[in-house]
């Protein structure tokens, strides 16, 4: 139906596309550490060595009943339900920061279990619903 030239161009384009996909895949694979925005507490635990004073981001859930407020800082436990990490932070907190919700903390590790944050970002989940629905879900 189509001429030889059209078929040749189609094959050529296909080849170019496949190699482009491969190139992008491989380069993203190598850059994985930079693409990932934050590490989970488990990934922190599995790290062989931690550098003090190096800026890292840790993300996970705020553990239930773990937020404690002091005069000029707060502390809470960040968990991915496998490992935990203690975080202290002083500064403004975003509106959506609350217990059992996602959070990304930026700061430095003191050791594998203790993290000093200098910035906190709330990570909200993909669920959207009116307040009434949420209340009825909770009471079930």
């Amino acid at each position, binding site marked *: 139906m*189509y001429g030889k030239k059209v078929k040749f161009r189609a094959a050529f*384009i296909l080849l170019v596309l496949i190699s482009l996909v491969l190139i992008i895949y491989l380069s993203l694979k190598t850059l994985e550490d930079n693409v990932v*925005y*934050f590490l989970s507490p488990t990934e922190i635990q599995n790290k062989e060595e931690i550098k003090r004073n190096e800026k890292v981001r840790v993300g996970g859930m705020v553990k239930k009943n773990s937020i404690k407020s002091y005069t000029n800082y707060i502390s809470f436990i960040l968990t991915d339900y496998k490992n935990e990490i203690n975080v202290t932070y002083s500064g403004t907190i975003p509106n959506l920061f609350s217990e059992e*919700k996602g959070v990304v903390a930026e700061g430095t590790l003191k050791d594998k279990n203790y993290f000093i944050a200098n910035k*906190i*970002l709330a990570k909200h*989940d993909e*669920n959207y619903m009116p*307040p009434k629905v949420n209340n009825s879900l909770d009471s079930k």
Partner: protein
Amino acid sequence: MLKNFNPNKAFFLTTKILKTLFFIFIIILIIGLTESLWISPEDYKQSHSVRIMYVHVPSAWISLGIFAFIGILSLFNFIFKNKNFSLIAKSLSTSGFVFCIIALVTGSIWGYPTWGTWWVWDARITSMLLLSIFYLMYILSWKVFEKNINQEKISSIIAIIGMLNVPIIKFSVDWWNTLHQNATVKIFSKSSIHPSMMLPLLIMTVAFALFSLIIFIMEYKAEVVKLKNKGLDRL
């Protein structure tokens, strides 16, 4: 097969429906805005700031969809050497770019009250910024290069490479840890959005899609007129 795929025919077809389309767009936009700004409920966690979603998400979808379409059209242009493909792609690019910028700006405005930051370099947001750069390069390639053949080739190459970025944007939230939340509206499983909020989202998507269709038809007509002025009756 491609014999009927001719700018001349499309030109006459689209002249009449433009006004009707615009009328429908205005009505749907008014319905969508009242639905999303007044009737739809506030979110259980974000309260009223969730309303930014009704602009942010449709514009992101449409800018992604248009770029994927431009990429496919450019592929076809390469294979079949039919100028009409690149004319359609060129006319689509402006509205896609505008919606891409709208998605980025509204996302930033939404991010401040919810996440606590205007901008982060996570995978989703960075790849979306990359898309806007691809759009810009695509549009500029039509303006900067003078010879018609060169324009078509260079813009097609940009579109095809940029098209590979589209799945990266879509799946970035699944492949890597990102601050941006995962997909809410899913095709193959249950969406995690309440129906009362899904409805305005869909209406706004239809309104935005209609708007880009209208802009597309207007630009496409201008392109065809330009060709005609050059004295080319057939391509």
